[in-house]
Each structure stands twice: as structure tokens, then as C-alpha cells.
């Protein structure tokens, strides 16, 4: 019985790990799709270091909305951002990851959740 419990616990752990990896994979695909859809040319050539208002103004509309929302929330998941913008979670996740790729935001995992935030310190 004890041995069975141990195996059960182990497989749950493995399943969790697989799920986590799948989610991360999903996000990476989101980013790739976004970049493909909107083209690399929308990315500014010399990335300015700060997500200040002038940078916000220069972003394409769909990314500006996501970026402004995250500025207001300070630190949030794609779910929380999509609640504010009323766009689908997968869409926001794509935009957020694209902003991370562009260097305007940071992403951090806490357990199974991915948090996005604007790094104002470094």
C-alpha cells in the first residue's frame, strides 16, 4: 500500500512537471506566432532601455494596450492582464511575451504561475 502511494505521488509530480513544460512551450509558441504575425520590422532597431511614455507611444496599438495595463498593475499574470483588457488570455500571453522579448518587461515564475513586470530598478 505504502509503495503504491509512493508511486502515485511520483506520477502526479511527473504529470505536474509535464504540464508546466507544456505551458512554457505554449508561451514560446505564442511569442513566435506574434512575431511572425506582426513581423520583426515592428521591433525598434535600437531597443531603448526604458518602458517610459515615449516608448509606450511608439509601440503598435495592440502592444501599447498590454504594456499600459501592466504598468498599472505593476506585476501580473496574463490572466490578470486579459481581465483588464478584455482580450483572450492566450492573446495577452503572446503580447506579454513579445514585450519580454523586446526587453521592455521581465518575466518571473512563482510556482506554476508566470508573472510579468516592468523592471524599474536596473
Amino acid at each position, binding site marked *: 500500500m505504502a509503495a503504491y502511494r509512493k508511486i502515485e505521488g511520483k506520477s502526479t509530480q511527473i504529470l505536474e512537471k509535464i504540464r508546466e513544460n507544456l505551458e512554457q512551450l505554449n508561451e514560446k509558441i505564442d511569442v513566435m506566432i506574434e512575431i511572425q504575425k506582426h513581423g520583426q520590422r515592428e521591433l525598434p532597431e535600437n531597443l531603448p532601455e526604458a518602458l517610459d*511614455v515615449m516608448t*509606450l507611444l511608439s509601440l503598435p496599438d495592440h502592444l501599447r494596450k498590454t504594456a499600459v495595463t501592466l504598468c498599472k498593475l505593476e506585476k501580473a499574470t496574463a490572466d490578470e492582464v486579459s481581465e483588464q483588457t478584455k482580450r483572450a488570455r492566450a492573446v495577452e500571453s503572446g503580447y506579454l511575451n513579445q514585450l519580454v522579448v523586446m526587453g521592455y518587461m521581465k518575466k518571473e515564475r512563482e510556482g506554476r504561475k508566470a508573472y510579468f513586470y516592468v523592471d524599474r530598478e536596473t
Partner: protein
Amino acid sequence: MKKIIAVHSYKGGTGKTSLSTNLAATFVRNGKKVCLMDLDFRAPSLHAIFKKQNLDYWLNDYLNGVCEINKVLIDATNNNGNGGKLLVGLANPSTEAIRDMTAKDRKWEMKALGRLLALRSALLNDGNFDYIIFDTSPGLQYSSINAIVAADIVLVVTSLDASDINGSQRMTSELYDLFEKKTGILINKVIVDYLKSKEEQKKFTKKMKDIHNLPILATIPCFCEVLRAAGNFIFTEERPDHPFTETLEDLAEKVEKF
């Protein structure tokens, strides 16, 4: 509904400071708790209206991360016993501070935006304020755009000057719209002839609405008495029966519902 209001304009001298101060005072007379902030760091004004010179802390210090907002705010309530409250946050008028503020880099402006955004939870959610009013610098200044991003609504003050109208239109499409801001127009210093009768006032407002393609929240005549007050006192407080005061009461009502 609690709100952050940014009072902005394309050109200088349109009446932003006069209107934000008098709008704040009008809200307070109606029993509201208001925080009025001078975000015009290039040409601070509110310290002169509220007669403050040597303070320990200014809004500059809050944005610099030197202190929290409660150290900056000064109670300027003129006691009239209806529960209203006016607190002001002042910009440091010293030449040194102005020079310092104009030399800030993008990194600093990004942090300043964070500090402005944080005011919502500090003052509206926890501090029980009904309104925060930002008086701003004209045009596309960093501090003004920060204020606009942090605000719920933008009140754009414009005269009937062609360059002013044109500039306001451009800012609507290139600034306020891009941040999806609820925007209302205040036409200030209108020649009284245009507003002689209710009928003419309506026609004038309609024409302005078509030009700006935005709600016209006030058409304010040019009053010599306001000019004569020369920013020495808050006009609507000293002259409760003046038509200027009436116009501002009407504006306060519209902003509340906006």
C-alpha cells in the same frame, strides 16, 4: 465615482492652472475630498496661489522617491463645514529644482510614471479622496504625458486661437486616443459676444463639438475680473455669485457624470 483628472493643453497660458484650481475648489464646496497637484515642474504655479515657499517636501521629492506622498500634501481647506477637503501637492519653484527636473533621463521618467500610478491606490483607495486633479505643463512634456497616462480623464483647455485648436486636435489623435483616454474639451476665454443668449451658446458649443469631435464640457467666457484677480486668490471662493463660478459649478457636475 472616484477619478484622476489631468488638466492639459497644447499651448501655454490657456487657463489650466486657473481652471484646475477653481474646479478643485468647486468640488470641495460640494463636499468632496480633493487632492490638487502641480505637475508643471518647468513653471510651478500652485505654490504662489496657496502662498507656500519653504517646504520640507515637494512633489519633486515624492517622484524622486525621497518621501511618501503624505509628507508632501498640505491641507488648504477653507473651512466651510460641509465635509469637503482640499489638499495640495506643490512643485518646487526654485531654479535649482526646475533645472534638476528638466535634466531627468528616460529611466527616471519611467520611475516617475510608476510613482504617479501608485497615487491611485494610496489616495483614492486608501486615502478616501474623491478626486485627484493634475495641473500640467503645456504640450508634449514628459511630466504631462505621465500625468495623462496615470489619469482616468483628460480635460483639454483650449482657446479659440487657430494654432491652439489645431494643436489640440493633433494631441487628441496622437496622444489622448493612443492611450484610450476619456477626453473632454474646455473652451476658455471665449469672447462674450459668442455666448450672449442660450441659443447662441448652444450653436457655438455645437460648432466646437464638430471641430474637436469630442464632448465640450464647458465654454468659459473671458472675464476681466478673473484676469484682475491675477492668481492672488481662488476666484470661485471669493466670488460665489459671479458667472465664472456658475460656469465652474456646471463643469464640476459634468465632470462628475463624465
